[in-house]
């Protein structure tokens, strides 16, 4: 009998931030092929090497096939196959015991995923009155901190890049060619329309190779470059005053003494405490910023009642005076002439699209770097003034039980385990991400923190670094084996702005179960009610009817016919307290970071630590993996077989290292051994290994043994602290010549 072939549309769900549609071919229940799926707008049909390689995860010989329980010590690798019945009974019993002993907040679920149903874990945590780890701080939360302060919007790239026809594309420390290849099509189109493309990066990346101009820069100094460019713009009077008056906090008066904005209630009895004030040059007095006929001043100093105050733009101008191009050149390594020329381009070749990606925000002060670039774009009138909203949060907020859980940023997990701050985490459930592989300071995690936990559950596809430390390992499903709702990717340049169904393509293999199924059966044992009994489709329907406007009229039935574009929601341009672009942030006054400024990297090559560890260590993202996913797939490892330490010939020669030698990278936190790749595409003083390799791929240690988990206080105030993964010093030594 001829096998019947069926085509099922689903969504690539590996965590790169895109959501490419996939058309899966199924023969007799077996996934045989995938290809890019259509969208109503054909420009979104897209796939990459990683997307195609996801098929190899499904039938991978090393997939976890049934539940396991640990024998021997954690991490020893001795396991016993158990039934789902035993696994679930054990988990239910242990969670109840630990909850009773240490309080329900001691139970933490830490799970990732782009699907709406991935948040079932948060519902579950809420129903247990437990905690749920927020995973943005795995390396992606500093930029969002900067954007939240600037725009009131976590993922605000749209303001900086969504121009119809940019005259100039400036890519700040980002490598979209490899990391978010979907997005590069826009830059390509701009180039083919005549736009120049400039790449600022300490590495000559595949993106830099496409650029009209490559500007090498010292790592962690992008913010200084933007400040130096602002110095040039303001010095030459090339800023855009009407844009600054209309769309930024520039004219708002700031109290010299407190650093806080002067509210109408401060100057007029009966005035509003929510209204900001400006100096009205027509009336010669301070008035509410929205008073009719007001002509606000951007500069000068004023006395209003007994308050001495200045417009925040005046404060910006004063702060930026501290960054003349010559000084910035000394900080960044970018020639002063280049700084001046690029600054003039920003002011004179508008609109300029500023792509920031996630690279430059993985330094300790990444939030400040984003704020500096945002401010440069704002004062030169290079902001795209269409508000957008990542409405995932509204959708999630409507989820059953979710209000019962407490969110803990992932970097706060360290102190939660070690010091009980903010909660004494004692049980940890890890799913849909490889925590031990991807968290900074791996030795601290595996040697000091995990041993303090009473119980660890990991649900995954493979016996990865995280699963190796579990007490119970559960076999999970690939996205081909479960249905989900994929929300529109807003804020990711070029990514599809569609609701899509991730349709189940094949039945779960072996004894594997989708995560919501696992939770359903556990909920029964823990007496958590009927909600978890709902099918995937029922939950999706519930979420879609949460009442959020952008989802109005969208149903599972409609989505089954194909992707549905998110409605342009009627939202304000900016979501800041002032409703404007805020380069001046009141809530950072206490740290002296109310204005963008430049601070040296935490582990600066100009600090005393550099005497011991002189090289900046990067762990950049590659086209051959998505984080730690796909590191075990032959179709990709044929192309990129092992981790290599990229090092410039200058640094290699100084250490008698030749291409292919085995080297050791080390600092006080740990070490890793791997092969050296000596090449010219990386700045002297910087070394790199692409992130996501598993410990077994290294000769010894791994890249996260070198990174640190130090928390930036400004990021804690704004939103969520980030792992400063590119703000790390190391030394390299030769181990042997191979």
């Amino acid at each position, binding site marked *: 009998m001829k096998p019947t072939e069926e085509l099922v549309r689903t969504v690539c769900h590996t965590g790169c931030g895109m959501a490419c549609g996939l058309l899966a071919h199924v023969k007799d229940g077996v996934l045989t*092929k*995938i*290809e*890019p799926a259509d969208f109503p707008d054909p420009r979104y049909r*897209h*796939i*990459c*090497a990683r997307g*195609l*390689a996801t*098929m190899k995860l499904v039938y991978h010989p090393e997939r976890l096939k049934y539940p396991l329980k640990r024998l021997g010590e954690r991490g020893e690798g001795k396991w016993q196959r158990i039934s789902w019945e035993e696994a679930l009974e054990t988990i239910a019993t242990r969670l109840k015991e630990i909850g009773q002993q240490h309080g329900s907040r001691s139970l933490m679920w830490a799970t990732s995923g782009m699907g709406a149903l991935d948040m079932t874990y948060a519902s579950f945590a809420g129903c247990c009155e437990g905690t749920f780890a927020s995973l943005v701080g795995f390396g992606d939360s500093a930029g969002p901190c900067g954007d939240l302060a600037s725009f009131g919007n976590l993922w605000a790239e749209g303001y900086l890049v969504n121009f119809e026809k940019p005259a100039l594309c400036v890519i700040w420390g980002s490598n979209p*060619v*490899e990391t978010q*290849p979907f997005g*590069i*099509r826009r830059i*390509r189109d701009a180039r083919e329309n*005549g736009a*120049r*493309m400039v790449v600022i990066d300490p590495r*000559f990346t*595949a*993106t*830099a*190779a*496409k*650029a*009209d*101009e*490559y500007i*090498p820069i010292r790592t962690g100094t992008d913010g200084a470059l933007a400040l130096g460019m602002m110095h040039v713009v303001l010095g030459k009077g090339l800023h855009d005053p009407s844009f600054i008056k209309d769309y930024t906090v520039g004219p708002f008066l700031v109290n010299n003494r407190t650093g806080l904005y002067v509210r109408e209630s401060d100057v007029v009895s009966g005035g509003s405490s929510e209204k900001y004030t400006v100096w009205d040059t027509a009336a010669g007095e301070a008035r509410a910023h929205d008073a009719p006929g007001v002509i606000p001043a951007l500069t000068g100093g004023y006395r209003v009642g007994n308050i001495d105050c200045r417009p925040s733009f005046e404060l910006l101008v004063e702060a930026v005076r501290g960054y003349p191009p010559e000084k910035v050149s000394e900080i960044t390594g970018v020639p002063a002439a280049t700084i001046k020329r690029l600054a003039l381009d920003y002011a004179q070749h508008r609109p300029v699209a500023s792509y920031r990606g996630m690279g430059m925000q993985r330094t300790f002060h990444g939030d400040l770097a984003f704020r500096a670039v945002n401010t440069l774009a704002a004062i030169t009138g290079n902001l795209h003034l269409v508000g957008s909203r990542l409405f995932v949060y509204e959708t999630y907020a409507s989820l059953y039980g979710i209000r019962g859980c407490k969110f803990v940023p992932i970097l706060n997990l360290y102190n939660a385990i070690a010091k009980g701050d903010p909660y004494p985490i004692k049980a940890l459930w890890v799913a849909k991400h490889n925590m031990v592989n991807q968290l900074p300071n791996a030795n601290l995690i595996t040697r000091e923190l995990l041993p303090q936990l009473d119980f660890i559950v990991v649900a995954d596809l493979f016996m990865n670094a995280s699963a190796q430390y579990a007490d119970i390992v559960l076999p999970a499903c690939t996205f081909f084996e479960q249905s989900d709702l994929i929300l529109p990717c807003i804020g990711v340049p070029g990514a599809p702005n569609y609701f899509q169904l991730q349709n189940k393509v094949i039945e779960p293999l072996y004894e594997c179960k989708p995560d919501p199924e696992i939770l359903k059966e556990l909920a029964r044992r823990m007496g958590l009610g009927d909600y978890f009994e709902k099918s995937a489709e029922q939950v999706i329907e519930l979420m879609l009817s949460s009442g959020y406007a952008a989802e109005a009229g969208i149903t599972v039935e409609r989505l089954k016919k194909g992707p549905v574009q998110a409605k342009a929601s009627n939202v304000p341009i900016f979501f800041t307290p002032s409703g404007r672009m805020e380069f001046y942030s009141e809530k950072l006054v206490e740290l002296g970071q109310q204005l963008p400024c430049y601070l040296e990297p935490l582990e600066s090559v100009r600090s005393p630590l550099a005497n011991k560890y002189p090289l900046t260590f990067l762990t950049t993202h590659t*086209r*051959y993996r998505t984080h730690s996913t796909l590191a075990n797939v*032959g*179709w*990709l490892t*044929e*192309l*990129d077989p092992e981790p290599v330490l990229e090092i*410039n010939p200058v640094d290699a020669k100084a250490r008698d290292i030749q*291409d292919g030698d085995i080297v050791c990278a080390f600092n006080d936190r740990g070490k890793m051994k791997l092969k050296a*790749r000596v*090449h*010219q*595409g*990386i*700045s*002297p003083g910087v070394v790199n290994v692409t992130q996501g390799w598993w410990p077994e791929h290294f000769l010894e240690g791994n890249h996260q043994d070198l990174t640190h988990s130090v928390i930036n206080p400004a990021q804690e105030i704004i939103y969520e602290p980030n792992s400063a993964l590119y703000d790390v010093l190391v030394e390299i030594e030769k181990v042997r010549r191979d």
Partner: protein
Amino acid sequence: MAKRYGLVIDLDRCTGCQTCNVACKMEHNLDGFSGIRVDTVGGPHRDTPAGEYPNLSMYYLPVLCMHCSQPPCLPSCPTEAIYQRKDGIVLIDEEKCNGCQECLEACPYGVLVYDTQKNKAWKCNLCAHRVDEGLEPFCVLCCETEAMFFGDISDPSAQLSQLARKRKAYALQPESGAEPAVRYCPPRPRLR
């Protein structure tokens, strides 16, 4: 005039993403090799540039069977396993191939591979099975940057022929005399 299927590849658009490489493995169910490789034109390793930091250059060059008009592999085959269709597609008859690998030596582009599992030579067949159904080769369908164009290169009005003319596309090693049916649009010069 007879059809002559081929490809025009825009090296300005190609980013070395390797999607074509993996797409080929998927379409032909391959492990360990692919019918298309993406060379780095730059430094000694994949994804490394030429020059001295920071004055560097790099671009990518996808190389696959060129489906030559005068394929040097064809006469090299002692068992006459290699043949050319009327539309120009060069194929290997797996039944006749004895695994001698003469063709690997004969090809100026190094695009034939030896499948150790089957003891057969293998190469890109321009997805003849798809072409016969009116589809484009799978690598072209999947090309992430829309840098690959498939069609009849003997038809001057075809989209790929027009692109080839406009961008002054070239063939690799024209001196080989093989007359390849794969042409490359060079990377654009940098804008000042």
